[in-house]
């Protein structure tokens, strides 16, 4: 089985995001970029499938810091790693990279395309269903377990509130991974050093099969803080205050 797994580098939204001067983008100069969490799980699922059934895994990365994450993918077990060129300082629009991923899936005779179920930049839609539609392959999002038996996949999908549904489908297919069957593995420094010798292929983007969904007129920060009370940043003071609040509501003794 040939598996193509997509790794998107996105701004670390755990940190502070500042708006750029044009008001239509975020200031990326001092931002940390990291692998989209869901794509990390997609990579893990790909490697687990490889270990279970002998698949070949090709990792394609897009965005700032792609080389670094591709070395990590190689260290985790990807046989081939490819950097898809992307516009610098621009958000990764899944709608716009879908054509490139679909073309690579065809060129590499992929049986399975895996990517994270979503990314924080998916304002114009999610990657897996776009790629599935372009290839006319079945697609399932929100998966948390994939088992391959030859060309037949058993895929479990989270439906919310603890409900899980298992589907059966034949390859070729596209899956949006929510969670891998096991947590993404740790990669040792020695493995990373060894993997740094893996040649990184380059791919140029295909013209998107879609018009842009929309132009972003403006970005803004949401009104912060809501109407709640700020208790500050001193743990002792906060603890005193919380005990009082909880006690007043009968939720703890003071």
């Amino acid at each position: 089985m040939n598996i193509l797994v997509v790794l998107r580098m996105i701004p670390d939204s755990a940190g502070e995001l500042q708006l750029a001067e044009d008001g239509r983008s975020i200031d990326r100069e001092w931002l940390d970029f990291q692998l989209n969490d869901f794509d990390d799980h997609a990579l893990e699922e790909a490697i687990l499938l490889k270990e279970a059934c002998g698949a070949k895994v090709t990792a394609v990365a897009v965005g700032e810091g792609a080389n670094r994450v591709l070395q990590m993918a190689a260290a985790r077990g990807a046989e081939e790693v490819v950097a898809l060129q992307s516009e610098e300082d621009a958000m990764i629009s899944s709608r716009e990279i879908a054509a490139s991923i679909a073309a690579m899936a065809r060129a590499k005779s992929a049986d399975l395309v895996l990517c994270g179920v979503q990314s924080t930049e998916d304002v114009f839609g999610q990657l897996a269903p776009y790629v599935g539609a372009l290839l006319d392959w079945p697609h399932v999002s929100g998966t948390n377990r994939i088992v391959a038996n030859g060309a037949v996949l058993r895929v479990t999908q989270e439906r919310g509130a603890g409900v899980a549904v298992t589907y059966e489908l034949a390859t070729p297919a596209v899956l949006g991974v929510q969670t891998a069957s096991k947590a993404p593995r740790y990669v040792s420094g020695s493995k990373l050093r060894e993997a740094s010798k893996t040649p990184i292929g380059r791919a140029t983007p295909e013209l998107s099969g879609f018009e842009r969904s929309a132009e972003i007129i403006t970005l803004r920060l949401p009104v912060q803080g809501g109407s709640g009370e700020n208790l500050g940043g001193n743990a002792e003071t906060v603890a005193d205050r919380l005990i009082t609040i909880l006690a007043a509501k009968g939720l703890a003794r003071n």
Partner: protein
Amino acid sequence: MKLIACTEGHSGKIEAFSLEMIAAARSLAQADDEVVAFFAGRDAEGASACLGAADRLIVACSTRLDVIPAEAYTLLLRDVVTAESPGLVLVPYSANGLDVAADIAARTGWPLISYVNEIKRHGESLTIVAQMYGGKILAECEVRLPAVLMINPGAFAAAVPDPIAAVNVQTIDAEPVLTSGKVKMVAIDMPDYADVDLTAADRIVCVGRGIGDEASIDLARNLATMLGAEIAGSRPVVDNGWLPKLRQVGKSGQKVKPKLYLALGVSGAPEHLEGMSQAELIIAVNTDPKAPIFNVAHYGATCDLFDLVANLSDRLRAGSGR
């Protein structure tokens, strides 16, 4: 113009966000417009009994399957879209909607905006406010119709449940599509609440990514015990295997409504807020003062969560000894 509101349900229950999709469509409909609700599933009667805020209801009926795979839902909806030529298709941001919205947009070539919170209509175009970067940024976009929108649950107040006149209900047989589809459903696992039922808990201590590692969860667990609370986690914590899935709060976990929700190191992604924002008392602790969790918290603190847990635990321990 026709506006199609996609609705969902299973196990004899219509999802609450279905009525929100109809309300959103209704809020955009002009005098000559028609709001058409689309439902696929087994509970056609349930849909007819509560989706009356729509002008018309199209039910793709299966007597066999309670949960319709997104592939089949999409194929059925594609036919409806072809037949009705709507100007707008509203899809809930749900497990099903994730596959449906982009597929319909791809096949029609229409624009798609996801994570939609607000919509204003100006004739044949819309101004949309959508969330990005886990709710830390709001994007205002202008979109020309026809278009597909994926709407955040909770973004619109739900329409009033009301029966729809039988004459306005059109039924489609979903079985041929379900039979011929490439994605076959083989099992449904319902949650086993024997260990914990967060939906019934009236006090919850929830840990997020800020807890750092699995070992640190014990500190929060001890605090939860002292508060008589259940320990819970946000998605990253559960994905890392630090807490079991049944203890996950959020869109793909449990939707909870406790008397106390103490969020420790939880950033408050929209998917998490969807699961807990109805709690009676929300206390959020996060060193990032711009964390979206503070937008729903009644009390917020920016101190180190470990310092706070230690201080709170000391005080609760002292209090219990009196």
